[in-house]
């Protein structure tokens, strides 16, 4: 029963959503160049399935790589901000300012800086757009660590490194995973921004762009759905990691 509920409820929700989508297109009698309906999609997938596999993989690995870099860099920045008040005061305005810059405007800047380095540019953008939540959450997690938690080890003469590994890091993990869930979706936006704004024939974004140029609207919608599926897959991969490393933070429901 529990299992049925776990997989059945989301499945029913998706089916209801598709029916709703199909319904409004049908009621309004929209042609597929205004809005494609779910029933248009299988044909698009059938025709371009090879491209979907190749380009979906390109989007996926570049997003994941950007995310991995964001985790490493974000954690390091977060640690620096968490442990040093001066670093926090100095870095916050910079980070917030940087985060406030619309990333679409950075695409041409990056494209000019590293001409022809498509993979590098895409990974860089996925990284740039997604490290901020991680840095902030790790920084806040560490700086709001209750002094008693530190004192139980500090009173025994434990080093700062020991306290970090045994107390601060595990205690910050729930916040870290919360931020990572936000970053996953952001990283996809970063990858696709480069793939759409500055297309270079790689990734689902480029496929979307080619659908647009060729007036193949069902293909464009099929790409959007494929992106959504990739996003969901990656999101639940993070949820699985969270269960393993921070499952303790989940209280049993009563």
């Amino acid at each position, binding site marked *: 029963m529990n299992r049925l509920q776990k997989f059945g409820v989301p499945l029913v929700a998706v089916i209801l959503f598709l029916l709703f989508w199909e319904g409004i297109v049908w009621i309004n009698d929209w042609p597929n160049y205004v809005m494609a309906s779910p029933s248009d999609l299988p044909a698009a997938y059938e025709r371009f399935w090879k491209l979907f596999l190749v380009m979906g993989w390109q989007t996926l690995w570049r997003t994941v790589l950007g995310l991995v870099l964001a985790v490493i860099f974000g954690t390091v920045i977060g640690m620096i901000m968490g442990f040093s008040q001066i670093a926090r005061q100095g870095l916050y305005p910079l980070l917030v300012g940087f985060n406030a810059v619309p990333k679409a405007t950075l695409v041409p800047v990056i494209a000019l800086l590293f001409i022809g380095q498509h993979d590098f540019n895409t990974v860089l953008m996925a990284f740039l757009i997604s490290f901020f939540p991680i840095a902030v959450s790790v920084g806040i997690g560490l700086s709001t660590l209750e002094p*008693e938690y530190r*004192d139980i080890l500090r009173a025994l003469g434990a080093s700062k490194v020991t306290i970090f590994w045994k107390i601060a890091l595990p205690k910050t993990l729930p916040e870290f995973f919360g931020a990572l869930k936000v970053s996953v979706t952001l990283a996809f936006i970063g990858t696709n921004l480069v793939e759409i704004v500055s297309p270079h024939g790689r990734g689902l974004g480029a496929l979307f762009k080619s659908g647009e140029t060729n007036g193949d609207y069902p293909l464009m919608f099929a790409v959007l759905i494929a992106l959504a599926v990739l996003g969901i897959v990656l999101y639940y991969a993070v949820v699985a990691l969270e269960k393993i490393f921070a499952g303790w933070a989940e209280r049993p429901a009563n």
Partner: protein
Amino acid sequence: MQNLIEIKGVTHAYRTKNGPLPVLDRLDLCVPKGEFCAVVGPSGCGKSTLTRLIAGLMKPDQGEVWLHGEQITSPRKTVGMAFQNPVLLEWRSILENVILPLEIVAPKMPRAEREARAHHLLAMVGLDGFEHKRPSELSGGMRQRASLCRAIVHKPDVLIMDEPFGALDNFTREDLWQTMRELRAAEPFTCVLITHDLRESVFLGDQVVVLSGRPAKAQFVLNVDLPADRTIDVLYEPKASEMLHILRDQIRIAQGREAH
């Protein structure tokens, strides 16, 4: 008798944006080896600062803190600490929480030996069978028991407690007082207890030190002249009532000075 803890003329102030806030003023305090020293005083009088000084987590502006005939300038492994908040780590089981200090103090101790030590202590405080529970699965009183086990698992010479029973209900608190006495009977250690509860100070203490209002001095020291193996009934005897009365008066004096 040799004094294990000696605090000599300690003065300390916190720097705040309104200038220095003096909390301790030429405080003297001696605790002989094996004795239980309860410290009471009006709230905000610097009692917690005192625990941090003895633990070596802070250095006083003036004066000296001596432990074992050595001046304290940094934390040492022979101290155990317990706070009002049990601060158990939610990602570890109760057993692993109790083991934690051993990982720092005795990194080479075999795992089986560590676990045996933790099991032994948990059994003593009545937490048999809860070793593999998460802290959030235990009641407040049980968590505080586990916290006490963790504070003494590495056999410290001194146990410093900052209102460890403050957040518990009265009956649980009295149970824990009893547990505390049993623990000390089994493995003697010197104790400094910060508390707001005068009954607690008389029941557990060998001496009760009353601190004055901020900045705190040792205003009064009461030697608790009660039998060593006490039960909670002792608090209802005239002798204890008399002591509680004296302490209450002293607290009133301490508060008066603070008001002025």
